[in-house]
């Protein structure tokens, strides 16, 4: 009953204001039955705050972190066959994932839309490796290659370098809590 009340109020608000966003993972709100009704009222239903931010084209935390890691390596993209301008021109970041290393992200993978020097946009898969020692690496793949990239990259990142002292201390605290 409460689901239907929320649905009815959401539709009413959307109609009144020419559009609205409902944050919900409820089956009643995300199912096919209400889709047409929602579209007619310009009601967008998204499952999380992050999806709502994407809808409004506001930078999400995962996109922000990925761009932070990519920025120092941006100038290497043309050598990877991606004709991007000198300044960072990421239009969108999707499906970003990270694997944590001793001092922050060690590995990152995302599908990004970049603006090329020609002005056109292109979607590519970008893989970043930022080891605590040694140079960072960037690899660019065509968007369709994502499956093979994911499997190989995540497997190799599953063996990160030895943890640092701060991490060991945190592990030790947990071991004490567990009574080890």
């Amino acid at each position, binding site marked *: 009953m409460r689901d239907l009340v929320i649905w009815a109020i959401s539709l009413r608000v959307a109609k009144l204001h020419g559009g609205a966003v409902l944050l919900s993972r409820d089956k009643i709100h995300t199912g096919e039955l209400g889709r047409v009704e929602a579209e007619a009222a310009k009601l967008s239903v998204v499952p999380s705050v992050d999806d709502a931010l994407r809808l409004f084209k506001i930078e999400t*935390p995962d996109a922000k972190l990925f761009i932070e890691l990519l920025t120092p390596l941006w100038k290497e993209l043309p050598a990877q066959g991606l004709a991007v301008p000198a300044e960072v021109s990421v239009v969108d970041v999707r499906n970003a*994932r990270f694997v*944590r290393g001793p001092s922050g992200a060690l590995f990152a993978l995302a599908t990004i839309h970049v603006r090329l020097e020609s002005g056109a946009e292109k979607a590519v898969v970008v893989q970043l490796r930022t080891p605590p020692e040694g140079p960072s690496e960037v690899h660019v793949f065509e968007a369709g290659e994502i499956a093979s990239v994911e499997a190989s990259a995540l497997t190799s990142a599953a063996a990160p370098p030895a943890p640092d002292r701060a991490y060991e201390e945190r592990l030790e605290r947990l071991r004490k*809590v567990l009574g*080890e």
Partner: protein
Amino acid sequence: MNLRMGSQLFIDVQIPLLWGTRAIVQDPEERLSIINLGGDRALLEVLEDEPAQGIPFAPSVEGFVIMDAQGTELYKVSPVAKSITPLSLKLLPVTISRDAIRVGTNTFQSNMVSGFGVGISVTENGIGLGGSVPPGLAALRV
């Protein structure tokens, strides 16, 4: 282990809070750690409110999302709200506040669980207070 967590007192229990195959532990400073016991060995996924090393994750507005090796979103951790919300896992969300442990709409408050394998267990089928450790789980060691 002996542990006070979310106003519950767990005495001589092996796993204070078992969420599916994952042990959830909150230390005295209220930091959450999550250990997956579903494999051959215990796999630390969250250490003191942060993703553990070698674990795929994505930062989110409320905290971070833990993923499996294929990139499937498993659950979301909110270090501020002290909540764990399933994404692809079919479990009830858990929130550990100072005065209670909330599992879905159920609230555990000021219980003492002593001498059981598991203090509070959350499965796809229900919730239990005080029980044995399900077979097939790895030992809780990190």
